[in-house]
């Protein structure tokens, strides 16, 4: 028990964080006191990760302040992406997080500490402290990270931030974690619990904070929420999206069918939805790789890919805008293996006009463009080809509203000409424009919706686990 029991562990006062023009967090006031278990929920891009990063000090606020009345020590984060050193053992990873563990016999101490912490959180875990992290399953690695978060490490944990801690744990182990969190808070610890499993949030949280568009839209004791009320609070106001679903041609033959059950017909716009990181991107990448070759590139590609993670999957950073647009169609327009530069330049000019790339000169480096305009370049790259299948991996990140409308129209027009679109999006509004939607959860398809079934409610319902955590 702390001495100043009532002082909050962390308090945010009108804290904001901007990334360029994007307001990831827009004036959030929030405090977490000892004994609190705060459930933090919100849809993709609501600002959850930004909030976590402000609290754990990855970056500071653009405005407002973040204070720790009792000092910042004892504030731990368990990250969603795994942050262990895979080449070290479980006990050695504790050593990384606990620099004061020194001297002869540190290994024994580390082993004892991590074993004790694992035993406390996950009784009967069966994890050997001397096992190399590489050799553990994803679930075991997540358990180790959580155990390191709760381990004393020379002091004691006062606030533990758990970001989707159960995403790779099975139900029984998740239940162990929930009961440990409950006990930890009852003993005066504080937890921020972020999860897409609403049942879990209700099971542990004493208070629930709902984030939407970088703001807190609800902050009430958990008992004051109902499930449907919570979903409503997270969702957008219903848009007029449904109205646009006129003028669609009849879909043709099935052109795509994956072992996972994903199916698409000629001329169809197929949406992939669900919360980020539930296997949609991996499914699309697999699909694309199976349609194209490492060794040959014919004059006309079967499929093209529009990346959403631009630095990783899309942009060729050393090149000009022009070269970034033309890379996928070079073989088609080439003469005797040489690039037809006149045709290349014509094509780029045409797409610059059609999709509205804001630049004076297509020879400018691609990185001189804003994120949204870079994204347009990637669209142009794909749409300029003749490929029958266009695979889009959340391609609208950082694109402004006007452009989005233009691109939607373009996609519709191209689909009407017989192209097939597979479109993963984290924005439900976009998915609602599709002819058919597959909702993913935990790497598998949890629902297939068509026509009038495609509504925000249905998609949210299928994205979140509604059952009680058992």
């Amino acid at each position, binding site marked *: 028990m702390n001495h100043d029991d009532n002082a909050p562990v962390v308090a945010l006062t009108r804290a904001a964080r901007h990334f360029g023009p994007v307001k990831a967090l827009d004036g959030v006031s929030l405090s977490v006191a000892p004994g609190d278990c705060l459930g933090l929920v919100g849809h993709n891009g609501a600002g959850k990760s930004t909030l976590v990063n402000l609290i754990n000090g990855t970056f500071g606020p653009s405005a407002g302040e973040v204070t720790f009345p009792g000092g910042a020590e004892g504030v731990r984060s368990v990250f969603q992406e795994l942050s262990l050193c895979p080449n070290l053992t479980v006990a050695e990873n504790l050593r990384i997080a606990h620099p004061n563990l020194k001297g002869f016999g540190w290994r024994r101490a580390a082993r004892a500490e991590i074993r004790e912490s694992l035993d406390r959180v996950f009784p009967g875990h069966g994890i050997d402290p001397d096992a190399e992290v590489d050799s553990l399953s994803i679930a075991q690695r997540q358990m180790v990270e959580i155990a390191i978060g709760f381990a004393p490490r020379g002091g004691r944990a006062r606030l533990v931030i758990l970001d989707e801690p159960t995403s790779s744990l099975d139900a029984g182990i998740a239940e162990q974690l929930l009961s440990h969190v409950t006990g930890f808070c009852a003993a005066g610890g504080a937890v921020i619990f972020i999860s897409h499993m609403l049942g879990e949030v209700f099971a542990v949280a004493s208070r629930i904070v709902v984030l939407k568009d970088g703001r807190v839209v609800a902050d009430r004791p958990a008992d004051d929420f109902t499930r449907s009320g919570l979903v409503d609070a997270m969702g957008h106001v219903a848009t007029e999206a449904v109205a646009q679903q006129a003028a669609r041609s009849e879909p043709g033959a099935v052109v795509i069918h994956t072992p996972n059950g994903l199916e698409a017909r000629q001329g169809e716009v197929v949406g992939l939805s669900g919360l980020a990181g539930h296997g949609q991107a991996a499914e699309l990448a697999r699909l694309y790789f199976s349609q194209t070759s490492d060794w040959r590139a014919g004059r006309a590609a079967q499929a093209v*890919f529009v990346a959403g993670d631009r630095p990783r999957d899309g*942009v*060729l*950073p050393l090149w000009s805008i022009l070269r970034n647009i033309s*890379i996928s169609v070079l073989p088609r327009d080439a003469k005797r*293996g040489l690039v037809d530069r006149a045709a290349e330049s014509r094509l780029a000019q045409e797409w610059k006009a059609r999709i509205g790339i804001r630049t004076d000169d297509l020879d400018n480096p691609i990185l001189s463009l804003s994120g949204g305009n870079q994204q347009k370049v990637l669209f142009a790259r794909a749409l300029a080809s003749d490929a029958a299948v266009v695979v889009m991996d959340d391609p609208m990140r950082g694109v402004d509203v006007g452009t989005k409308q233009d691109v939607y129209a373009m996609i519709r027009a191209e689909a009407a000409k017989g192209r097939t679109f597979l479109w993963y999006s984290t924005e439900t509004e976009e998915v609602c424009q599709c002819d058919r939607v597959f909702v993913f959860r935990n790497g598998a398809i949890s629902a297939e919706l068509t026509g009038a079934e495609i509504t925000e409610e249905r998609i949210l319902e299928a994205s979140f686990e509604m059952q009680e955590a058992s």
Partner: protein
Amino acid sequence: MSGFAKPWLWAWIAAGAAFAATLGLTAGRGAGELAYAAMSFGAFAAIVGMGQMLVITLGPGNVDLSIPACMTLAGTLALKVMGSDPGTAWLGLAVALATGLGVGLANFALIWLLRLPPIIATLAASLIYQSLAIWSNRGLRIKPPEGLADFATGRMLGVPNVAWVALLLALATWVMLERSVWGRWLLASGQNLRAARLAGVPVQAVRAATYVAVAVFAALAGYLLASFSGGAALNMGAEYLLMSIAVVVIGGSSIAGGNSNVPGVLGAALFMFLVVSMLNSYGAGAGVKSVLTGAIIIAIVIAASARRSRP
């Protein structure tokens, strides 16, 4: 391309400065001889350097350490086949190029089939090529056919023939990189292999072709060097391992890949020879020459990284 610095210019300026500094000492005497020597010796460094540049363009981790062994092997095999008989120069060239093709395919097979890191694959394979060269070279000291030797040491319009060869090759490489689809594919793969693959580039084919290209370039350099110096020697390629990497870096290509620079390699190849001549004419010992060479390489890398992080 506007907005881009011209990194190749620096290599040429440095080469010019070294040239001037050397002549400054002799008050301009021997300019012709110095230029001839620089272009002759620079030609070999330029040819292997361009090959190494193509591989380094493929991105981090890609480098060919078998260049010296490939040069030696191609040189010895070619000379052995020619056996000093007149009129066999083309046959020898064909043998040398075929050797390069074989070496390149073998290297890539190790990299691709056994998933070995390129450094270790080309290193291990180079030991085998070296043995092949020793075996085929045993005790024989074969002179190149007279016509070929005359060609390799001769000059045309005042420029050494080997320099013409290097220039032609540079032109071809430049056209390949800047104008052809393959060049675009290579540059794209080096910037971001995954993004290139997702843009439809057949990345494995590009990698294979590149490893073959570097070996063929090295083989050609070996053939010319053996003809130039009156016979193949087992250690004739030794100095070209570090040299090939150094001229790529000094020439302004990025070691991180995706960016290559043909004129820069040519300038750097001249510079590497001229800086040594300059230090020679100023009476510097071998030690000082080497230290300064190293210091220059590091200074250029630091300057390049400063340029990279400025925007």
